[in-house]
């Protein structure tokens, strides 16, 4: 036996959340062929089918692209610091993909490490993630290569698995998730079923071997030629979490704010002295791969990637992680003498 909800009922439920004044976000079509997680204004705009996944991720709902840390006010010649108010609104993310939700525990390691990040913590508490298991995949998807899959439950509060065209199975994974759905489901005798996910695209073990020995490999330069050095991959990534802190204000005072940043920007590592330790795009691409697959794992025992493929999907030149890891994996399989295929 399982719990189920019909799709219209789900939409009505979303409507009732909105009516209660809750913040709800989910996939919305913002243009031809372009679906993004966006705050919902009406349940009708929620998109549950007809796309592989959004180009952005749900991380913005716990780690906004722009966040006020604290305010400062000039009082004569003194400066007064005022804490930014912590978020208070409950929010529900509906229609998240497992590769989005699985990123949340990954982010947790970072933001709860050492001194916990108060506003991140608060947002995590206030956020309920309702995930939709994947039935379709595209060439960019590679969750299975990282031992994840289309119904990965990590990070989700509720997992919806399609039973048929009308109905989802509702699997509550946390009490927060259960509270949302418990009175709105019907009992069903079927469980939702989905496939095994995208075919494996590279060998993670081979990658590990390669990274252990090839920090100085010329292969990084061949990838770098194509990379334009924008931040689309990092900003579309559910796990990338680098930020920049700046002050913005006027003569009365202002705000210290935290904004997303990307290690792919040429000036990301520019020091105040003028020195820049990563002057070449090759170094920056290498950094991104190493951080995700070696530095972060060494520190937290997990991978800083869920295999969502957004870095390629949103990439102006269709680079991103998968093509790089595929090439590396191929290199590891071949004898070392052969030069890498031109990316």
């Amino acid at each position, binding site marked *: 036996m399982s719990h189920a909800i019909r799709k219209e009922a789900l939409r009505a439920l979303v409507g009732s959340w909105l009516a209660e004044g809750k913040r709800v976000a989910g996939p919305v079509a913002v243009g031809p062929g372009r679906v993004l997680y966006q705050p919902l204004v009406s349940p009708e705009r929620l998109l549950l089918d007809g796309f592989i996944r959004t180009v952005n991720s749900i991380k913005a709902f716990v780690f906004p692209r722009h966040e006020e840390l604290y305010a400062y006010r*000039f009082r*004569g*010649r003194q400066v007064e610091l005022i804490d930014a108010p912590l978020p208070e609104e409950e929010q529900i993310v509906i229609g998240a993909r497992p590769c989005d939700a699985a990123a949340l525990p990954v982010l947790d390691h970072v933001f709860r490490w050492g001194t916990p990040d108060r506003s991140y913590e608060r947002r995590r508490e206030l956020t309920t993630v309702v995930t939709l298991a994947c039935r379709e995949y595209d060439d960019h998807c590679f969750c299975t290569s990282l031992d994840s899959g289309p119904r990965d439950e990590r990070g989700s509060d509720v997992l919806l698995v399609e039973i048929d065209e009308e109905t989802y199975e509702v699997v509550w994974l946390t009490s927060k998730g259960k509270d949302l759905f418990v009175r709105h489901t019907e009992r069903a005798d079927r469980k939702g079923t989905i496939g095994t996910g995208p075919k494996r695209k590279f060998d993670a073990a081979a990658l590990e071997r390669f990274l252990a020995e090839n920090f100085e490999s010329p292969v990084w330069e061949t990838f770098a030629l194509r990379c334009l050095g924008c931040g689309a991959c990092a900003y579309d990534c559910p796990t990338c979490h680098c930020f920049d802190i700046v002050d913005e204000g*006027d*003569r*009365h005072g202002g705000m210290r704010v935290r904004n997303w940043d990307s290690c792919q920007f040429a000036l990301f590592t520019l020091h105040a002295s*003028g020195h820049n330790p990563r002057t070449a795009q090759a170094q920056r691409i290498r950094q991104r791969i190493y951080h995700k697959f070696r530095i972060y794992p060494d520190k937290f025992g997990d991978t800083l990637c869920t295999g969502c493929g957004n870095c390629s999907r949103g990439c102006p030149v269709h680079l991103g992680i998968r093509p790089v890891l595929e090439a590396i994996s191929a290199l590891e399989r071949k004898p070392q003498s052969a030069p890498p295929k031109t990316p």
Partner: protein
Amino acid sequence: MARIGVFVCWCGENIARHVDVEAVASGAATLPGVRTALSYKYMCSEPGQALIRRKIAEEGLDAVVVSACSPHMHLRTFRRAAEGAGVNPYRVEMANIREHCSWVHHDRGEATAKAADLVRMAVAKARLDRPLEPICVPVARRVMVVGGGVAGIQAALDVADAGHQVVLLEREPSIGGKMAGLSETFPTLDCSQCILTPRMVEAAQHPNITLHTYSEVEAVEGFVGNFRVTVRKRARYIDVDRCTGCGQCWNSCPSKKNPSEFDYRLGQRTAIYIPFPQAVPARPVIDKDACIKLTKGKCGLCAKRCEAQAVKFDDEDRLVVEEVGAVVVATGYRLYDPRTPAAADGISGYGEYGYGKYADVIDSLQFERLASASGPTAGEIRRPSDGAVPKSIVFVSCVGSRDPAKGLSYCSKVCCMYNAKHAMLYRHKVHDGAAHVFYMDVRAGGKNYDEFVRRAIEQDGARYHRGRVSKITEREGKLIVRGVDTLAGEAITVEADMVVLAAAIRPAEGVERLAQKLGVGYDAFGFLSESHPKLRPVETNAAGVFVCGACQGPKDIPESVAQASAAAAKVLALFSRDELSRDPEIASVNELTCAACFACERSCPYGAVERAELRNGRGEFLKRTARINPGLCMGCGTCVAVCPSKSVDLDGYSETQVYAMLKSLT
């Protein structure tokens, strides 16, 4: 953090009347970087400047904000004062709370609030001022004098006599200006031409003077010490170098009935002509609209007669470039034309006086020609209509002057004197004639001036009526002048044979265009603006450009000549230096971030941007970059605006400063 002193000036009552200067100062004292803020009655006075110097020493200030008048008025003054106390002069800023505030906003609350804003902006800017050192540029010791009337001639001769080169420019075919056409001059009644002609010749023959007649300023480039003036030499149709001035041409010219400009249309001249016998240079020009050869293609008699073969019918305008270090503007005046209303000037005109309608209503410059021995009547007073000697003349003062309702608000200053002179000259020549003068006041301030007017009335019997003329009509060959005598309190009517209108003095035609080329300001009437009405009367706000004579305001000959000598003295002071120091507020490139797109190069009006390469200590090529040549940059900042990465910045108006000023207004 900067150590700024804010000094708020009362300017006597000028600022303090509408701005609460104490509140402005106490508000300024709380601003970041401000060490001291105080107000004082006259900040530009010596005690005021001493106060600034003392505070700089006491408080260890490194920047100064003076909240007073326009920086165009006193920035230099305060920079010098601050420099005297050891503050870099380019760390001095002014908040203009007089011209831009107290003089234009009379609500005390609003004016004070705005003044506080202006001070805050200036402090924000001063906080970011960099200390700078002036840039030195060489001076071209050569002056251009624009206008060859008595003022221009005087200025030219003074500078030339001091040993410097002068380029004297005159629009008409001959130098001499208005004075060359005057009869006798007040208050001495000496012959105008007798005193001027020798000076004209002297100017023409002076080894240091280059004369361009029939020429105008086409364009001006450059800056003080280094102007490049393009002169348009109008086609004269005469090869001046070949011409001997023999007169064969004009004596043989069949086109004789052209109104003479020099005689103000009272006489006639030929198509090829010299404006008057004593013209300098004594070389003719051809009036291309009157010349039969040039209009119809036949004739050419003058060319046939010319033994020197100096007539060139194919002559064209030529452009000559003169490089000079200074310019003196002496473009003089013209008379207001009482006939036509000028809507643009708000002048409704004096149609009721019948000027242009009745031949015997003339203006005062025309009367000068009638009274002049070299004039169309050889000095006999004869009326234009029939050549009869008028037995009664009415002289009308203030036609256009002192009449904001219909004419111009200002006093033309010289009319009272020449009215008296005209009455006197007429009575000397026509003993039984009646000279009536209608006047509003008689303004005869000046050495021997009032005595001169008294003489006209008491010895020469001029009849003065205090009042305006309301209408002039013609009846049976007589002009009926209706007016009022406000002293007698009665309307009076005078039957006159001739009426002379003392029309207002206006600046010469086209002076605005010239002023614009030179960057000189002018007032609503077109008179050029001096830097300061009292302290810098012949300087203008365009450095290196000076004014003298009636282009700056109505004046008589002695005043014009005095001003011309003053302008010459200013030029000589400028030329006494080998080089000028120029404000170093110029652009510079951050060569590390410059993308070398050279948008700046394309936008620079001075060609001051160079393409350069950046190399490391070992001389290895790093990148290309734009670079500013500080000798050529004039600091307009156009490069800053077009630089996409904002790798160019302009000292004194830097990006940080402008944004800081904006921020100070939030």
